[in-house]
């Protein structure tokens, strides 16, 4: 029976490595002493969400890489700001790692108590999840051109369910409006699941919830994904064209990245960074994430920092236009 096969072998191996390292660590260099205790990964969203799933998958492999246990702790609350603040304010010793997504950029401007995105140390970009646009098939909309047509000619027709101001799907909706040059109604829900349920029940007829969450529903035929805002098509929905292919220049992704509090010694940053980059080269990890439908998009500390700045440039103007900026106004 092979139920415990992989995790057993892996954990035994990790345990052995830890024991061996423990024996010899006394003679090792200071930098190699790190880490000598478990790494705490703070997820700002509840268990079971996208951030949590990515963090647990990465954590599983990262503990092999570092020969230390990786503990995931969920600290949800206040639209993701609580967990991010907890990680950003932790001792900068490298033992606390935070998990962040686009919400950190949005909250920078929407909540003066939130940790600003540029007040943390980017560690590594892990995953990207492109925005998408889906409609109910009974809306009569076939493709992006049809959607734009409908939005322009019948301003009241389109009801877009999303995750509420500051959420990724909400910002996607605002950016979509900007890209196609017309407005439509955006209806807020408490997170992705109820927003998807709303389009399933017909309370709304469009949604900007990311592709990965729409695939199951789209399989049933009631909902159609009409465009993906990636550079290329989503590998799990290969028939859906990108916005670019449909003639609209719109590329926008949510992401999951790891970050550190500012002030962590550079040698420790590098150890964690290279461990994460190694995880994202691991074939087993890539196979597991591929199966899980995740688009792994490795970026080191520097690349992640640049990516964040790029996202900030996209997001700030629509928040400003929407009157959502209440802090750190530019």
């Amino acid at each position, binding site marked *: *029976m*092979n*139920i415990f*096969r*992989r*995790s*057993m072998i*892996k954990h035994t191996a990790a345990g052995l490595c830890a024991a061996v390292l423990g024996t010899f660590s006394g003679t090792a260099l200071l930098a190699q002493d790190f880490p000598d205790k478990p790494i705490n990964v703070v997820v700002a969203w*509840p*268990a*079971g*969400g996208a951030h*949590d*799933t990515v963090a*647990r*998958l990465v954590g*599983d492999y990262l503990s092999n890489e570092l020969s230390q246990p990786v503990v*995931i702790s*969920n*600290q*949800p*609350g*206040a*639209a993701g*700001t*609580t967990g991010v*603040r*907890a990680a950003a304010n932790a001792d900068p010793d490298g033992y606390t790692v935070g998990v962040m997504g686009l919400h950190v950029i949005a909250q920078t401007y*929407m*909540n003066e*108590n939130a940790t600003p995105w540029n007040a943390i140390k980017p560690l590594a970009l892990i995953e990207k999840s492109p925005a998408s646009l889906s409609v109910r098939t009974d809306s009569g909309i076939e493709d992006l051109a049809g959607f734009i047509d409908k939005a322009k000619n019948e301003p009241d027709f389109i*009801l877009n369910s999303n995750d*509420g*101001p500051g959420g990724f799907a*909400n910002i996607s909706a605002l950016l979509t409006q900007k890209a196609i040059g017309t407005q439509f*109604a955006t*209806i*807020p*829900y*408490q*997170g992705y*699941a*109820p927003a*998807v349920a*709303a389009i*399933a*029940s017909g*309370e*709304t007829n469009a949604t900007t919830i990311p592709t990965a*969450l729409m*695939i*199951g*529903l789209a*399989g*049933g*035929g009631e909902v159609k994904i009409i465009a993906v805002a990636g550079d290329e098509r989503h590998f799990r929905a290969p028939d859906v064209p990108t916005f670019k292919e449909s003639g609209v220049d719109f590329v926008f992704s949510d992401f999951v990245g790891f970050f550190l509090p500012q002030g962590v010694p550079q040698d420790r940053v590098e150890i964690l960074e290279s461990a994460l980059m190694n995880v994202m080269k691991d074939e087993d990890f890539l196979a597991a994430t591929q*199966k*899980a*439908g995740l688009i792994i998009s490795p970026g080191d500390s520097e690349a992640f920092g640049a990516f964040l700045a790029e996202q900030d440039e996209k997001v700030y103007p629509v928040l400003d236009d929407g009157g959502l900026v*209440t802090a750190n106004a530019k």
Partner: protein
Amino acid sequence: MLLDVVLQSFDIFFQNPVLFGVAVVAVAVGIVLGALPGVSSTMALAILLPLTFGMEPEVAIMLLLMVLVASVFGGSVSAILLNIPGTPGAIVTQFDGYPMAQQGKAGRALGHALIASTVGGVLGVFALMLIAPLIAKSAMNFRSPEFALLALFGLVLLAYAANGTMLAGLLSGAIGLIFGMVGFDTVTGVARFDFGTAVLQNGIHIIPVTIGIFGITEVLGTLAASRSGPLPKVPPIGKLFPTVADLARVAPTWVRGSVIGTFIGAIPAAGSAIAVAVAYTVEQRLSRGTKYIFGKGEPRGVAAPEAANSALTGGATIPMITLGIPGDPMTAILIGALIIHGLQPGPMMFTENPEIIGAIYGSIMLAVLLTFAVGMVCLRGIVQVMKLPTHVMMVLITLLCMVGAFAIRNSISDLVMMLVLGGMGYVMTVLRIPVAPLVFGLILGPLMEENMRRSLIISRGSWSVFLERPVSLAIIALIILVIGSSLWPRKKRKPDA
């Protein structure tokens, strides 16, 4: 065909006795994790999720379902014995469960919880197997206006169910409503009532509130009582199982609780706190005018939420299978587990991976039955907790309250909030203000506010949206009926007064 699939899924257990052993262990672990305050069913699943990465998908999903179903029952153990809900689904079980335990009926309370859980679980699975598409379809008729009115219905039931102390009950409920407004405005995403602090932006979480207002309040009450003389002894444990007559009286409650649980479970993202709140208030309302008083150790007050939260497991799986979206936070983790194994939950699953559907049905059914068996065996041991001396018990309760309040969001501020509310709960008890309505206000208030405002956004400000939809109109009629029927007997009684 359906039966084949289910039998096939049971088959994997018979082919492999080791797997059956693993299932029994998973159920025991689930009961323990559920009973530990602070480890909710959702967390128990999240903790075990990485262990399942390397397993076959059927085995992974089976293990998770075993733990899930068992932890839902486990939550009621700490609610009944310690007055602390182990999981959000158990927040009302203690209303009557703990008084029963204090009257020396701990065994019977647990028995009621276990039997109601089993009945609810079985009915929930049957609903899942036989009429899932139908339930999914009717749940889809439940949109924002219906949600808003359902919450209003719950609040109305609450106000009129509090016999004698209606004004105090309303006051308590209003405090709960105000608590529910703290944190992020669900519609605009703007923080409110946070007094400029980051701590209050988290909102007031139902679990620390319930733990404080029941657990700590109880400890403070006992402390105060101990100053004025020796503490009343908890009577001997007495009979372990409810009598047949008792069960017969409670039976209709099982069915009502199960129906409510299945249906609310099938409404995506509704969650167990809402299901148990509705189930409890309905029972309370139905018993009005009879000699059975809820909140003082009425078995139906235990049976209703337990049947509802167990049936909810089956119900919450319905949107997962029919639509690919989670019915509650626990199914969100199940979906995560399936996706990690490359399986996409949703309508296509019936044709693409029927064996997984079978494994889900079979696992829930087996989990319910195993929980019953393990629960029955362990009941005698579990109730021995009641034999602890009062002072030891109070220390234990305080400790678990603190762990539980912290662990739910890994937040020290939740711990402080829990202690403050414990003090407040004690003052309320001294003033004879019931605390239960506060809990309901906190659950139902945000639900009503969010859905009412969203309904009005969708209808572009027209209130007629609540009248135009048949289900919503029916709930309005029900609300009027409840208010009307409450006014009627009062008028009749007036001449005597």
